[in-house]
């Protein structure tokens, strides 16, 4: 079962939201309803997040992604539609069950850290546990464990004001981890950090995720970050999700010009893998051939950046093999060059034209 399931979500700010939702369902454009003084922030959004997945919602500012994440834990009430978390509809919960859901099932990490400046690092990390009524001993222990996970041991008694931005966000992360919730919502969690620190935090998150296997909904406006972290990415524009897919899918088959324009600047060699650019072998016989057609081999999940790096030692073509050393396909020079060209943008436009 999906950890989070959103269906037909709308959020309209301004007057008469119900009425505006009805108009939008009937096909009214954003501009038309905006003329009536309503601001539709999220329009007809649906998706499922699987347990243990990092689901990234990617969009520019004003695309509605922050509004969307706040509907997942009920900080905002949807104008229409449903959010199901663990089989419960968030909008139907009374205030008490909603608080219970937030403290026991979903924690959150904020863009500007949102730490309590008058409480120590340890007290901040253990905040969720205090709300849940754990005694001081248990709080301190779990808080210390969480700080240890994010590499902040020894800083327990400092105040947030004494920490750098990166360290503050580690405390924010520790606070979410200490809550021991299965789901973590991360709202532009690394956007306020310097590029180098951001990179470090991304690595740390990937590393933690391998060990902890949380369900993470991660909001960002940085496509490179989305592609690094996301198992799947939802691309948002003007309140709507325009495409959901793995980073490879989005890179290779952007749903429209907007997405294509976006992915143009992505470092493709760090997203695409050997398997995604190879020419698959045609005959089953060839795949069991231990000599791999006499070529050097490369693992299927190797990033293109690494394939490039090895071509000075292993001449092209390369045989792509899976974990059982079965040949899956071949990479020739033209495949590598072809992969570097932006996802056949011309071809996609033709396809769109024929669909539309």
């Amino acid at each position: 079962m999906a950890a989070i399931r959103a269906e037909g979500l709308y959020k309209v700010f301004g007057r008469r939201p119900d009425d505006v939702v009805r108009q939008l369902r009937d096909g009214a454009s954003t501009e038309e309803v905006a003329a009536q003084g309503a601001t539709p922030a999220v329009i007809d959004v649906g998706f499922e997040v699987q347990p243990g997945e990092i689901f990234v919602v990617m969009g520019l500012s004003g695309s509605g992604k922050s509004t969307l994440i706040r509907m997942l834990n009920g900080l905002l009430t949807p104008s229409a539609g449903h959010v199901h978390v663990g089989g419960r509809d968030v909008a139907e919960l009374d205030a008490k069950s909603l608080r219970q859901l937030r403290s026991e099932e979903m924690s959150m990490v904020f863009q500007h850290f949102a730490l309590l400046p008058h409480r120590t690092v340890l007290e901040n990390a253990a905040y969720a546990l205090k709300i849940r009524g754990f005694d001081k001993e248990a709080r301190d222990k779990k808080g210390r464990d969480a700080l240890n996970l994010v590499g902040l041991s020894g800083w327990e008694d400092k105040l947030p004001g004494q920490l750098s931005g990166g360290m503050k966000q580690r405390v924010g992360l520790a606070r979410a981890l200490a809550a021991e919730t299965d789901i973590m919502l991360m709202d532009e969690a690394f956007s306020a950090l310097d590029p180098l620190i951001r990179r470090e935090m991304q690595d740390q998150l990937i590393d933690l995720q391998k060990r902890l296997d949380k369900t993470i909904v991660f909001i960002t406006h940085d496509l490179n970050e989305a592609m690094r972290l996301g198992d799947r990415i939802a691309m948002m524009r003007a309140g709507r999700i325009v495409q959901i897919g793995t980073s490879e899918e989005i890179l290779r088959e952007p749903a429209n010009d907007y997405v294509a324009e976006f992915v143009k600047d992505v470092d493709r060699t760090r997203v695409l893998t050997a398997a995604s650019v190879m020419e698959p072998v045609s005959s089953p016989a060839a795949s069991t051939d231990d000599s791999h057609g006499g070529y050097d081999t490369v693992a299927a999940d190797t990033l293109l950046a690494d394939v490039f790096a090895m071509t000075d030692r292993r001449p092209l073509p390369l045989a792509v093999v899976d974990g059982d050393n079965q040949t899956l396909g071949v990479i020739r020079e033209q495949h590598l060059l072809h992969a570097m060209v932006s996802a056949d943008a011309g071809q996609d436009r033709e396809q769109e034209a024929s669909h539309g």
Partner: protein
Amino acid sequence: MGELLQDIEQWRLPLGRWVAQFVDWLTETFPAFFEFLTNVLLGAYEALADLFTWPPDVVMILILGVLGLLARGWKFGIGGTAALFLISLLNLWEPAMETLALIVGSVVIATVLAIPVGIAAARSDVVSNAVRPVLDFMQTMPPLVYLIPAIFFFGVGVVPGLIATIVFAMPPGVRLTELGIRQVDQEVVEAGHAFGSSPGEILRQIQIPLARPTIMAGVNQVIMLALSMVVLAGFVGAPGLGQEVLSALSRVEIGPGAEAGLSVVILAIYLDRVTAALGTRSGTSGRLAKLKGRLAKAK
């Protein structure tokens, strides 16, 4: 025709008479209430005045000096002690302590009323909009005007002085409490919600602690306004430095007037600096906190 026009020109809205009638009605209808209030306020004032005048002057000066030292440091401690000693040398210590009792009494009551109203106004726009004109009224009405109905309700003496002081001094307490709570970083409040805090927990654990410097600035303003009003309260027979100023005024004597005025200024500066220091120090730094820490270790 001409007579009618003259009548219209001479007619005026009898607002003052209506207010006077309303005040009469209140005093006649709720005498027990006003009597009760009078007894409570008078009792509180007398207890405070007895407390402040009970120790010998020098002891009291030293106590206040040490408080100043704890709040702001040794320079202010010494300077404060010297300035307070000056009041004593002017032989005005007893009225000064009576004034202090009036201030402490009215400030405590004004603060106890102002902070909850400010919190309510911060949490609800309806309350905020309802409270604002009332505060405007309380702040801009010339303070001597309150004293008149206060005499009607409570007679002459300490109590109308206290009431007028409370009314006059309360508004900045309400305003700055509301402002402070509204200014708390919304993301931190949201974090409270996101981790399942109840509204009460958010108020106690996030909003009030983070708004504390602004709330304390409000309390500081309440004290300052109370000081200025407490002198005027001398006009309705409230004791203290106000009486000294008033008697100097009525006899047109520059000397005693200047002495009493200077004593008010010293008291004002002392109270302002001490309470301002309490507001800006956060809970985990500052001399008081350090002292608390040392005491805790000693145990």
